[in-house]
């Protein structure tokens, strides 16, 4: 499992990873699984010629928790909360996707108040996820201070979530039929305060990092991904939108109240790291505007539709997709009519985004690899499931 660091002196030796990638004098090194910049436990085996990357091979499975097998023995109400732990930075959105799939199978109609609450929580989660991405990405590239700025604002969102949902990170709040509890009375006031504060903070983020000449030199022209390759590798989310692919699920296949809300799909055509960075930064502003539009117009009514205590989906298969902070998250349930699913497949965005890493990193230096991984915004438990 471990590749010992080795220098290839004989060019005719066949490398274990397949293909004739290693020439004479090439160095094979391990990055990870324990490494500050791997965003989790990702093991990369990099073949270098000097300092130039010739091949990057990800070894996965260091956090493979057999979630799909486990879900086959959990009921339809229980399996939703395991997905919080998969992509834990968009935990609401993951739960939302699962709840949508179960509702599609049971053909339940959700009350309008629940729809708006779900979208509000989704967008706040997207904000929190992009904040953490920004802080961690700047830290990887070498700027340590933005990390503290990002977490300071993220704590505000965590406090808002904690008041309503009860938890800071893995908020088990969505149920098939609506949401678990009603909003806390302080919710609107606190969110409005946060919106006012955060608008000036995004400008501060731009000033600190985006306009910084060193940062721009690190990111511009690095890690180019063309539009055809992005589609072929199955990339979604900001990774693909930075290469010009229009793939925002909120626009293409709208769900809940996204069809009534005004927001732009941010597409950049640069294809390099800086384009992907700009997509996420602009998405922060768009999410903020969605929250602003909805916070004053929450309809009254039920927050949960009436459902039976034990849910049984009819025989068949159902697929639902949502837009997480990383891309398209798909839930594919095959049901045989029982109380537990027969087979569940989670189409995780990170899995496909990671498969493009080798293509993107060929020919660049190791420092560029860190920048590329930062803009891919990988969360490894999401990839390994």
């Amino acid at each position: 499992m471990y590749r010992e660091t080795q220098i290839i002196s004989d060019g005719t030796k066949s490398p274990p990873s397949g293909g004739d990638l290693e020439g004479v004098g090439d160095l094979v090194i391990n990055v990870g699984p324990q490494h500050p910049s791997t965003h989790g436990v990702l093991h990369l085996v990099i073949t270098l010629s000097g300092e130039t990357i010739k091949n990057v091979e990800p070894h996965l499975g260091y956090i493979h928790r057999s979630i799909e097998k486990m879900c086959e023995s959990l009921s339809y109400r229980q399996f939703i909360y395991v997905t919080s732990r998969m992509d834990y930075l968009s935990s609401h959105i993951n739960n939302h996707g699962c709840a949508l799939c179960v509702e599609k199978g049971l053909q339940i109609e959700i009350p309008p108040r629940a729809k708006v609450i779900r979208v509000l929580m989704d967008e706040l989660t997207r904000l929190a996820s992009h904040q953490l991405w920004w802080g961690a990405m700047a830290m990887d590239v070498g700027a340590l201070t933005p990390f503290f700025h990002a977490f300071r604002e993220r704590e505000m969102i965590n406090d808002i979530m904690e008041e309503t949902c009860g938890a800071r990170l893995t908020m088990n709040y969505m149920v098939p039929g609506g949401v678990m509890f009603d909003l806390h009375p302080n919710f609107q006031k606190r969110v409005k305060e946060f919106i006012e504060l955060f608008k000036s903070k995004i400008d501060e983020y731009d000033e600190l990092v985006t306009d910084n000449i060193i940062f721009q030199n690190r990111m511009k022209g690095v890690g180019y991904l063309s539009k055809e390759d992005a589609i072929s590798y199955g990339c979604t989310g900001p990774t693909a939108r930075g290469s010009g692919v229009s793939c925002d699920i909120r626009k293409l296949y709208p769900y809940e109240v996204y069809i009534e809300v005004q927001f732009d799909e941010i597409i950049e055509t640069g294809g390099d790291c800086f384009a992907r960075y700009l997509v996420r930064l602009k998405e922060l502003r768009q999410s903020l505007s969605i929250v602003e539009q909805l916070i004053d117009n929450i309809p009254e009514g039920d927050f949960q539709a009436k459902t039976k205590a034990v849910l049984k989906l009819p025989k068949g298969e159902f697929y639902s997709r949502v837009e997480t902070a990383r891309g398209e998250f798909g839930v594919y349930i095959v049901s045989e009519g029982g109380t537990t699913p027969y087979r569940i497949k989670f189409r995780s965005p990170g899995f496909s985004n990671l498969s493009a890493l080798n293509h993107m990193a060929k020919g660049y230096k190791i420092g560029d690899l860190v920048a590329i991984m930062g803009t891919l915004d990988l969360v490894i438990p999401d990839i390994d499931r």
Partner: protein
Amino acid sequence: MSDLQNINGEFENVSPTGGELEGAFPGSVHPTASGGILVTKLDEVINWARSNSLWPLVFGTSCCAIEMMSTASAKYDWSRFGFEVARATPRQADVIIIAGTIVNKMAPVLKRLYDQMADPKYVIAMGACATSGGPFFYNTYSVVKGADHVIPVDVYIAGCPPRPEALMHALITLQEKIRKGWTREQIKNNNSISNGQ
């Protein structure tokens, strides 16, 4: 006369209410004509120094790592307690905080990291997954049901994920454990001394 000097002019670590100051330097200074003399037991001083500067290893596998990052950042700030530098390499770290689930493929990596750390080293198992497998206990084929199957653990934290305050409480508990001499290292060493080895 400062607060720490008693009626005879001796320095003592006594709080204003008369009890011993928690976490204070375990020794007292007796003033003499030319300067003070430090009177204390060496073991206690070493334990005090070790507990106040534990450097954690950057080891987060899944969700608990985010709460660990929150504890390290501005709002909850663990560097007030001495955990100033989070080292990436195990050679320079004192305490490994296992934040996240350990799976069968990761267990040898964890063992290797623990072996690479220099003595004295301490282990904190953060969260339900590291304590006992957590939500992944039943019907999983690849999760190690508790990090203590792999390495010996000093402090366990409950929660999924535990709040940053819970992590701080665990770190302070570890500090107290070290000061009182109750960690595995110290018990092992004391036993070997008393057995005459």
